């Protein structure tokens, strides 16, 4: 690089950019003490005088017509105060879309909250009952008599796509195909993204690899089950305390499902005990509103873990096919990716994002991705960290490993040769701006892990991953208090330490000490609309709003100082938290405290705000290295070493960036090895608990090394890129590629559980 300025850097405490006071440091988070002492209030921790406890009755069948629901026996139980069913909710037109960020079909949302004519999965809510204690509500739920007519069910993509498959929705006709179909189908839509001419590309190819892949549905597995408390006042104003990834989302969806105006609902966000995308929709809140209306009492609803598994969104399982064609020099000339994802009981799998993200890391002249969104009798999927991308990357990155082997080249070299960089046109359309994919590969290549010796039965794999990252609507208020401290109010639940980064960015702009800046997650009445916490957007987009609001405050403070000094505002600069007059004269710099003290006399309180639709979110890339050891007699796979490398653009709080990388990697390891939904022949979930839905435990894992690469995002004042989604994308293939290296077996079906692997070893 000579004397040119370094294009990227690997972050450690000595490479931190010294021009920043707070950005890149590791302060203790402002909400931390409450969380280590048990004081923090999560969704289920609220209580209110007079509240009732509600319990949801759920379908025992995978697919059934609801013939009748009789509530008399339940209502007769002492302590029971009310029962609701789907009939208590307004019937919603299929055209209605929810306000807010994503075009949700309200009728589907409403029917997922509570079944109307048909129960569409084992666990689908059918009725809810409120009583004076949880035990009574539970007993009462068992006394609700539901008559079902059981219908044939369909549980996976292959069965659902058959011509004679039972049709789940009579009004779903496959979109995106010609000619337009005349019969309803479980295939909701076909997507296609393409660049160049794939057929011609494969003709040029000298080496072609291809395979079929499959993944099972996996749950986000947040430790806090969904919970909500709803109270409706005499003037019909509903207040909802709940744990979610977006208080405005809850308000909007609940209003839509219950037929209320948004202004009639106030949502107060609780601390959220994990979400990973799973808390981006509503399940309990509309039930709470309707029960509160019916009983005239506040209603508390808390899901059990079994309900979380049976009724809330996992992400899709599905099947895929990936074909790659290359020249002998390693240039990939054609790629074809086909993905079919389970959407659950209502349309809307993340298959289009899989189609876009799977091939995004590579500059391939002729590339095509085709996706199918397929409904099945399972719970409706919800977002899960980089929705749709991990399954696609599992196929593409496994195929890349096979291609490297077929070409006889190092898998990092193959990725470097074909990797996307600034100016590469993605197959889904746009050209990339400055991105840091190649930099993650270089960091991997030079990491000691890559060349460390391996023991017997061990193997090493590498895989990469991409996520778009998004901006969107965010609002922030920054208030200067009378004593010169500051409050930063945003509308985004803090799911992994975002209050710390909001305060740090505000303190950076204001030039204040961090402990004088207090970040707050506001309720829906305290700060303007914000899209939900998800898509790795908060540090980027809400951070941008905070920076703008803080800059607004700085501007006002300069004006106030100018007034006090009787000078033009242009000669007042803001330096290290002080107004400084650069026009000479005897003006001692004024601190925030000085200016706050006199705010009343210079024009009133000082408060900045920003409401923006942020653009310029920089795409994120990561590369993971995984070592496994395989027990050839039992098929057990142990991850013995793991390194996650990622371009974070700029790490505001490096510890929480590392935490995202480590957590995402481990969720991906679970996905690769042990996590899956298991259904019996009747379509009933057989492992709805943490005993048999096997998320990784502490003793399953090694330390997860991290390398933060910083290629600053030109679209953010500090260079931030989203970091939360990317780290779950590479691990599925990183693990599979390591197993391939250890056993010489290409495992194409997840999870690579011991019976599956042992069977493959024994059949070799």
């Amino acid at each position, binding site marked *: 690089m000579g004397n040119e300025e370094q294009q990227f850097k690997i972050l450690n405490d000595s490479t931190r950019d010294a021009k920043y006071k707070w950005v890149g440091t590791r302060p203790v988070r402002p909400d931390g003490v409450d969380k280590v*002492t048990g004081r923090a209030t999560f969704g289920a921790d609220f209580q209110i005088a007079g509240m009732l406890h509600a319990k949801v009755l759920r379908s025992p069948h995978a697919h059934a017509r609801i013939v009748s629901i009789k509530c008399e026996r339940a209502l007769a139980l002492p302590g029971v105060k009310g029962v609701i069913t789907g009939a208590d909710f307004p019937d919603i037109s299929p055209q209605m879309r929810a306000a807010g960020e994503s075009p949700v079909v309200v009728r589907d949302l409403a029917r997922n909250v509570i079944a109307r004519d048909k129960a569409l999965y084992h666990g689908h809510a059918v009725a809810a009952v409120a009583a004076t204690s949880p035990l009574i509500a539970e007993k009462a739920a068992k006394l609700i008599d539901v008559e079902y007519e059981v219908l044939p069910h369909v549980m996976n993509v292959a069965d659902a796509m058959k011509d004679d498959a039972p049709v789940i929705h009579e009004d779903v006709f496959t979109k995106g195909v010609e000619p337009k179909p005349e019969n309803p189908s479980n295939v909701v839509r076909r997507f296609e993204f393409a660049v160049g001419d794939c057929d011609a590309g494969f003709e040029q190819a000298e080496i072609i690899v291809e395979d079929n892949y499959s993944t099972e549905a996996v749950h986000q597995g947040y*430790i806090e089950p969904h919970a909500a408390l709803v109270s409706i006042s005499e003037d019909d104003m509903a207040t909802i305390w709940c744990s979610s990834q977006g208080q405005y989302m809850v308000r909007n969806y609940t209003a839509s499902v219950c037929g209320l105006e948004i202004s009639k609902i106030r949502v107060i966000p609780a601390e959220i005990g994990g979400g990973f995308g799973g808390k981006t929709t509503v399940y309990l809140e509309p039930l709470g509103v309707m029960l509160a209306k019916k009983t005239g009492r506040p209603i508390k609803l808390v899901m059990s873990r079994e309900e979380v598994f049976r009724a809330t969104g996992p992400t899709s399982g599905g099947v895929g096919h990936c074909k790659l064609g290359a020249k002998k020099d390693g240039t990939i000339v054609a790629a074809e990716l086909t993905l079919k994802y389970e959407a659950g009981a209502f349309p809307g799998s993340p298959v289009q994002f899989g189609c876009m993200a799977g091939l995004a890391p590579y500059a391939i002249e002729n590339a095509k991705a085709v996706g199918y969104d397929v409904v099945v009798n399972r719970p409706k999927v919800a977002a899960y960290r980089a929705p749709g991308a991990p399954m696609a990357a599992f196929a593409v990155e496994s195929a890349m490993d096979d291609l490297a082997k077929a070409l006889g080249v190092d898998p990092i070299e193959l990725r470097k040769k074909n990797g996307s960089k600034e100016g590469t046109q993605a197959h889904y359309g746009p050209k990339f701006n400055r991105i840091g994919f190649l930099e993650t590969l270089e960091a991997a290549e030079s990491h000691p892990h890559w060349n460390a010796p391996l023991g017997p039965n061990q193997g090493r794999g590498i895989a990469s991953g991409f996520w778009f990252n998004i901006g969107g609507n965010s609002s922030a208020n920054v208030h200067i208090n009378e004593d010169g401290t500051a409050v930063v109010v945003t509308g985004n639940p803090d799911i992994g330490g975002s209050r710390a980064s909001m305060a740090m960015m505000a303190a950076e702009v204001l030039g204040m000490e961090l402990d004088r800046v207090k970040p707050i997650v506001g309720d829906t009445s305290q700060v303007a609309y914000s899209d939900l916490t998800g898509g790795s957007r908060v540090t980027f987009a809400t951070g941008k709003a905070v920076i703008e609001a803080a800059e607004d405050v700085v501007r006002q403070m300069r004006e106030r100082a100018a007034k006090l000094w009787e000078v033009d505002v242009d000669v007042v600069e803001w330096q290290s938290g002080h107004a400084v007059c650069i026009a000479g004269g005897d003006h001692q710099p004024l601190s925030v405290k000085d200016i706050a003290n006199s705010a009343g006399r210079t024009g009133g309180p000082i408060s900045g705000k920003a409401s923006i639709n942020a653009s310029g979110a920089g795409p994120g890339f990561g590369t993971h290295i995984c070592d496994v050891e395989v027990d050839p007699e039992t098929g057990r796979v142990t991850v013995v070493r793991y390194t996650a490398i990622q371009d974070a653009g700029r790490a505001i709080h490096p510890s929480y960036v590392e935490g995202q990388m480590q957590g995402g990697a*481990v969720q991906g390891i679970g996905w690769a090895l042990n996590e899956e939904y298991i259904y019996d022949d009747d379509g009933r979930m057989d492992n709805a608990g943490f005993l048999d839905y096997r998320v*990784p435990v502490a*003793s399953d*894992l090694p330390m997860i090394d991290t390398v933060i690469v910083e290629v600053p995002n030109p679209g953010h004042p500090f260079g931030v890129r989203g970091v939360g989604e990317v780290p779950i994308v590479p691990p599925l293939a990183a693990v599979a590629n390591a197993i391939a290296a250890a056993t010489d077996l290409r495992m194409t079906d997840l999870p690579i559980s011991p019976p599956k692997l042992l069977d493959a070893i024994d059949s070799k």
Partner: protein
Amino acid sequence: MAKHHITTTINGDETEFLCEAEQTLLDVLRDELHLTGSKEGCASGDCGACSVMVNERLVCSCLVLGVETAGAQIETIEGVADGDDLHPIQRHFLEEAALQCGVCTPGFVIAAKALLERNPDPDETEIRYWLAGNLCRCTGYDKIIKAVQNAAQEMRGS
């Protein structure tokens, strides 16, 4: 039969409560005594978010009946800090950023404290196996292990 009247000691304070036979200690702590620091993540002993000490044994409070605790000594997350003085484990959880959402944190703090009181110098494997009953879905456990190691070091005075 009326509710059972139970007298216990919780975080050093004699505490009385009324409960039904089926109510778990976790139900009692959260719903009757408003000690909501212990969390319900599974109600089946698989996640450890409700970890408490009963008579100096680490247990899941979801797998203990309230009626069983007559005369017992119970320690919950609310009793770990001494006023404003955090326990070293709590402090190191903050310094190492060993929590993201924080809902599993009270259980981890209680379990880690039980470990270090019994074994002041556990190796990484011992820490990982001791904490295997505490699920964390955010952190990948890495920073939690480091926080426990650092706390152990401080508590040993080395």
